């Protein structure tokens, strides 16, 4: 597991985001157990209250569920929920900055659309 933290956002938020990413990519499959607060806190040397706050956010977002006495598990449908959310965020997270950068570079709309098409044709997507 590869976690990397910086100062860009509160620590619990970065932890939640990175765990969500691991669920999204399938590193933790649905129904699979994720590391406990204790394990994460010791491994990453992060205050357990911070880890718990991050985990609880994922519980609130219905990505994780707590099973009494057994630990935290990835909820059924978690990957789909993440996909839906990311689709909703796609415009704001990617398109806005893409267009802003294109404008700075003087790339016109038609050219940008061409470039996107090229990405589809040659990319791995």
């Amino acid at each position: 597991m590869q976690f990397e933290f910086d100062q860009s956002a509160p620590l619990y938020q970065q932890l939640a985001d990175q765990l969500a990413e691991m669920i999204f990519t399938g590193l933790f499959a649905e129904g699979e157990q994720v590391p406990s607060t204790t394990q994460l806190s010791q491994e990453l040397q992060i205050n357990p209250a911070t880890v718990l706050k991050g985990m609880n956010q994922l519980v609130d977002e219905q990505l994780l569920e707590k099973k009494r006495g057994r630990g935290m598990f990835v909820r059924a449908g978690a990957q789909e929920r993440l996909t839906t959310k990311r689709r909703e965020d796609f415009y704001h997270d990617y398109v806005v900055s893409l267009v802003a950068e294109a404008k700075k570079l003087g790339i016109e709309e038609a050219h940008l659309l061409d470039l996107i098409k090229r990405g589809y044709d040659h990319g791995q997507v």
Partner: protein
Amino acid sequence: MDKFKVRGISKRYGKKRVLDNLSFELEPAKIYGLLGRNGAGKTTLLNIITDRIFANSGQVLLGDATVAGNRAALAQIYLMSEADLVAKHTKFSELATVLDATYGFDFTEARRMLAGFDLDDQAVLAKLSTGLKTAAKLVLALNVRANYVFLDEPTLGLDANHRELFYQELMKTYEARPRTFVISTHLINEVQQLLEGVIILDDSKIIKDQPVADLLANAYEISGPAAKVDEYTAGLTVLTSRQLGKIKTVTVVEPLPDQRVIPDQVKLAHLDLQHTFTALTNKGGN
């Protein structure tokens, strides 16, 4: 568990004022950082609140009970410090037995931790190197059954591997038996993620006492063309400022005005705890 309350503590050495009317509270089962530059008064404060020296005024309470001279309260408070209070030939196991009588002591867990530092309980503390002596003292501090454990420079002389081991053991023991730790250290970057609360002492006063996350949420580095940075930070308290050619970089530790638009070319970044600390305690600019 009871709260630990410090009320209006002042201390003078002769004419020199070391602590000036300090008040704060520690909650049960939380990890705090006590940060301050050399000479800020950290060690004096720790010695007062653990009843090793007297304050000129003020009170330290555990729940509603005064700590000074109170054996029951003092059995809940442990200070690991740089000062060596042990006789020359004392072995680790003998110290542990003494601590056990006052606080209770987890011998099994202590032996496991010692092994991690390549030590055993027959080690004579006075004969150990600085780093290993620190390690032995840490193992003592992490295994006393006190609800408030104060660690004054707990990483003195420890190499990087042993510091990491200490941070891991701290997290482990904290989760197994939640209690309050107060860590006084200069290695701020290394402990940032371990801390929940932070108390910053500067020039004999407390200048910050809040959750680390709250402090960092309002700690910024702002950089860009000097005129634009000045315009954006007008009215804010600029703690440090430096200039590289036309680019000015300033630090601010306070909420930014919501309604003010960040000019193009001006960049905002959050500070880490160490840079927040140096910005707050920096005297006379850069």
